[in-house]
């Protein structure tokens, strides 16, 4: 008897309907898997989903928090769509976010007496540079020495995180914090305004939306965007066509790192008004942004929507912990399952799968 074999055939093109269908089916399967997990935990999955949805989107309060959460996810996620499009697997957005936060905090503490209209733009600019240059390290290593950027960008997250720790425990530890590891509060000039009665620091939100549109235009409408797409699809072909692989690899990493850096600026200047230990600045936005980018199928405009969805999921996740007494880790399982299915679903858009007897 012959054992049937799975055969993968590369599709020459993948139609739009298939991409949408793969996404929808992936999400449905993910939900089903999660439902089984809820069921195993002794919770009615329908009630759990309803609580998550209500927690994230079902009230003005939940919506405000969802938007707040979506800001760093959007910035980092939009940046990652570009990097992934150019086939640079930047896993280190979290570290780039920390570097943005470090530079912005340094500027805020150093130049606290500057007026807001100078200080805040300088902080954003510095934060962008901080994140971009942090991303440049894996980019250069990849472009020049062929070092796998997945590994280097991920490892640099821990370096950046330790740099934050060093600063808050060391030279930047505040003078009015009783020895606790936080910096002093930023001056009023370094604090971003928020929408009334919420934590939505709207300048960062506007910046994020604007950048999403810009990156979309860059990819869809410019020669450079075309080069990025070709490089991403087939680096060898791009090289034969005379495109500068090193330039493109560096560029997409710089931009994606810079955007993650901006997310870090938004967190310290819009939420905390100071720098704190890394787990206090970001509960993993840079990693969740990877899901944002993939879920958006690397479309920067779609990333606005997926950032909002993932933000809602994070916010709604609190609700199920509090209301249904589920362990805190449930939400992480939730996110992980979704990413797994979405990436697995990708396979079906790229390959035709046959059973061979």
């Amino acid at each position, binding site marked *: 008897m012959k054992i049937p074999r799975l055969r993968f055939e590369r599709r020459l093109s993948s139609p739009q309907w298939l991409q949408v269908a793969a996404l929808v089916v992936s999400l449905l399967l993910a939900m089903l898997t999660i439902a089984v997990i809820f069921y195993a935990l002794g919770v009615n999955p329908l009630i759990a989903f309803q609580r998550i949805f209500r927690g994230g989107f079902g009230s003005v309060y939940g919506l405000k928090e969802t938007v707040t959460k979506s800001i760093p996810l959007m910035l980092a996620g939009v940046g990652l769509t570009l990097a992934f499009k150019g086939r640079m697997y930047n896993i280190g957005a979290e570290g780039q976010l920390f570097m943005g936060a470090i530079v912005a905090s340094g500027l805020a503490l*150093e130049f606290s007496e500057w007026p807001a209209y100078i200080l805040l733009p300088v902080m954003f600019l*510095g934060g962008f540079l901080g994140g971009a240059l942090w991303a440049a390290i894996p980019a250069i290593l990849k472009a020049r020495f062929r070092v796998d950027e997945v590994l280097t960008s991920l490892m640099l997250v821990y370096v950046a995180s330790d740099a934050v720790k060093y600063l808050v425990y060391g030279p930047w530890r505040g003078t009015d914090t*009783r020895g606790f590891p936080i910096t002093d509060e930023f001056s009023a000039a370094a604090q971003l305004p928020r929408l009334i009665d919420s934590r939505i620091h709207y300048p960062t939100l506007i910046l994020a939306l604007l950048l999403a549109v810009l990156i979309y235009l860059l990819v869809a409408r410019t020669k450079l965007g075309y080069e990025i797409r070709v490089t991403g699809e087939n680096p060898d072909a791009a090289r034969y066509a005379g495109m500068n692989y090193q330039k493109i690899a560096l560029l997409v990493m710089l931009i994606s790192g810079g955007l993650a850096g901006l997310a870090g600026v938004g967190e310290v200047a819009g939420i*905390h008004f100071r720098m704190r230990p890394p787990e206090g600045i970001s*509960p993993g936005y840079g990693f969740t942004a990877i899901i944002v980018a993939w879920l958006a199928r690397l479309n920067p405009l779609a990333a606005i929507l997926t950032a909002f969805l993932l933000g809602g999921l994070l916010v709604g996740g609190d609700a199920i912990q*509090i209301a249904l007494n589920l362990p805190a880790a449930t939400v992480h399982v939730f996110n992980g399952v979704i990413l797994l299915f979405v990436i697995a679903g990708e396979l079906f858009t790229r390959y035709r799968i046959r059973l061979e007897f």
Partner: protein
Amino acid sequence: MRNIVFRFILLALAAILLVTACAPKPTVTQPPVAPPAAGQPPVAPPAAEEAKLKACYIYVGPIGDIGWTNAHDVGRRYVDDKYEWLETAYAESVPEADSDRFIDRFVVEEKCNVVFTTSFGFMDATLAAAQKYPDNYFFHVSGYKRAPNMGTLMADFYQLYYLNGLMAGALTKTGKIGYVAAVPIPEVVRHINAFTLGVRAANPDATVEVRWIFAWYDPAKARESAEALIATGVDVLAFTEDTATVVQVGEEYTAKGQPVYTFGHYSPMAQFGPNSLISGQLVNWGLIYEDILTKIYLGIYTTENLENVDYWGLLSGGWQLGAPSSVELGGEFGVPFNPAFADALKAAKITDPLLGEISIYDLVSKRIEQMKDPAVLFEPFSGPINDQSGALKVQAGQRLSYFELNTIDWFVEGVIGSAKP
């Protein structure tokens, strides 16, 4: 050409880091905090009434750890089981960045009357919530900011660390003691100091070497640090970290024939070191929670009089005369030290200026008795105390104040390592 670009980028990175790293910190002075609130009359358990109270807890770690968060959850369950009128809820592993939202949700959607936030990092969020919800009660653990409807509480181990230090000093053979330390904040620095003062009271030449792991929960780093310390000749270990790792390391070495003795931290850890754990520090948060919640229930605490309510749980009860101790010496409740070490502790003798020749065994009991006394007849941080450089920091006859203990950022003589790494 490209080389120049790359170099420029690296230079710019270095420059940015340099500029930002050198940023000076503005000096702001903070008025000293008010002393702990004066005691209120003891509270009898209230009679059953219609009124209900809902208390909600925000934890920084998972309740399944074997340290800080678990101890708070034991306290929560204690009050929850004891009082019919009390309902409780909790959220675990709450990131500091998200604590605002959890507090909001507890107040707005879960209708919690009282919110306890159990990590220093939640301080600003708790204060903001106290201002936002003036009709709710807030209590923050381990911080210093208060409001009319926000009090603070802490159960502190420094007296227990001193007692542990006495035993460590008596039992070390190499004269080298190690301390695996979580993060450099005043609480941990205070504990290392108290431990070292105890060590040197029993053994004036012994040293305490500190290894920072920069984490509250990191069994891998705790093991690495413990083993590194043992490699330098350390034969007794104390620690601050939320697992029993250091105790397990001590037990492993002891079983291999190289005795390394340890002290448990936060939870009963005797089971992990039956042959090597000497003693440890234990907490009973439930007693403090009980005091707070019954006082709110009886109307003694209102949303207008918490400004000076600051619990500081010590052996003497700490917040009111005659209150039970919220901290306890031992590796498990009811057992102040491992009986296997009783003979060795009885054999170790020192000469105390007041007590004369006395065994460490008796000295520990004596010090417990003195520190449990409402008048606190003994205080570990009594001068003369030198810092690491040998300079006199606390004059003879002086004691460190509550404020000084809570902001301490220097090590006493005998500690090897930096308090500001």
